[in-house]
């Protein structure tokens, strides 16, 4: 289960605040995954006191709304990433960035599909730069794209381009994964699926033996 409480002193109308919060949730908490299980209790409550005395926001399109949305997205993304970073048994945070989609929602769906893949998560725990599993997870996301335009990078290492595997330094790629695991750092997976403007991110963590151990013992 994830729970969240967000507070702000901005001055914002109720209907605008409720839309802003859902947009921010879609760009943050709804883009994380540890085990693919959607809880019975997931909840985010967001409260705006209005005590800052800032200009009142009564339209989602106003400049002030754009400024508040950006701050709200940042706080929720910061918290969402910390949940994925602390995933049960995790040794590293996985950040999947997808570009080239038709729209933001499509790119976000592909990103979450890759972050959710047990095979991708296990490969990262095994420090295996397994581009095939990343390509497979992008392909079954339910979003159509030209596979000849698929490009995959692991950190700065190009694994796939033009839909085909590239020669790359496997030891260096594995060392990148190993270092991320040893420092509980972040593994960056960048996927491009075309030339569209849509971009999205998702966050997850690697799948370790400890995840099974923790959940085999913790009954619910």
């Amino acid at each position, binding site marked *: 289960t994830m729970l969240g*409480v967000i507070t702000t002193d901005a001055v914002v109308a*109720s209907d605008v605040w409720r839309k802003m919060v859902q947009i921010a949730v879609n760009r943050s908490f709804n883009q994380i995954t*540890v*085990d693919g299980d*959607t809880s019975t209790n997931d909840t985010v409550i967001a409260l705006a006191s209005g005590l800052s005395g800032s200009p009142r926001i009564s339209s989602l399109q106003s400049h002030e709304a754009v400024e508040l949305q950006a701050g709200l997205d940042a706080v929720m993304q910061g918290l969402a990433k910390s949940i994925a970073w602390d995933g049960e048994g995790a040794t590293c945070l996985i950040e999947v960035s997808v570009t080239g989609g038709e729209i933001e929602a499509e790119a976000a769906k592909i990103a979450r599909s890759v972050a*959710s893949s047990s095979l991708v998560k296990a490969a990262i725990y095994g420090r295996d730069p397994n581009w095939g599993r990343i390509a497979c997870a992008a392909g079954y996301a339910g979003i159509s794209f030209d596979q000849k335009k698929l490009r995959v990078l692991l950190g700065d290492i190009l694994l796939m381009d033009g839909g085909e595997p590239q020669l790359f330094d496997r030891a260096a790629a594995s060392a990148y994964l190993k270092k991320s695991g040893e420092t509980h750092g972040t593994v960056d997976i960048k996927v491009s699926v075309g030339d569209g403007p849509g971009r999205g991110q998702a966050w997850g963590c690697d799948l370790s033996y400890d995840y099974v151990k923790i959940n085999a013992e913790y009954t619910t």
Partner: protein
Amino acid sequence: VSATTPTDVDASSFPAAPIFLPQGPWSQIPGGVTAAQGFKAAGIYGGLRAVGQKPDLALVTCDVDAISAGAFTTNVVAAAPVLYCKNALEFSETARAVLINAGQANAGTGDAGYQDVIECANALAKLLKMGPEEVLIESTGVIGQRIKKGALLESLPNLVSSLSQSTLGADAAAVAITTTDLVSKSVAIETEVGGATITVGGMAKGSGMIHPNMA
């Protein structure tokens, strides 16, 4: 043997998660949910957790009627506090308190579980001298178990008297909402809206059963 009375355990003894904020025109400041004007928070050990004495009961309050919003699991096996909060937000555009318990999810607990939520909201509202519809509730923990209501209700006066607008209050609340988490999660930023400085802060928990689809 020290009596295990509910106490506000020092939250700083629990590790906090690193927060990876995206780049932007904001600066990170201490304080989590209490950084924004008007908010207080508390986290105490109320005897709710199955084992250990880690804080397990949190409260966030606002001095004024705060504009409220919420996003909730779309899992149709929804916990009692989820159903309660969705109704409360339908009923009122504002709220003034969020009460959070860790240990029992109050999910799969039927009408009795829903009644527990109402009793807890009413009891807190009375202490805070506000309407029960201004109180929202979040729960996390073992599915199928009802809240340890007796222990929770007994802890409310101590929880309310522990409220603080300091960073300590925010940190204690962030620890109290955790379950299998290894670290607490709390952050706040200062940014500009229309030339005025505003603050956005928050706390979260989560480590397992994580694939949110909230609406």
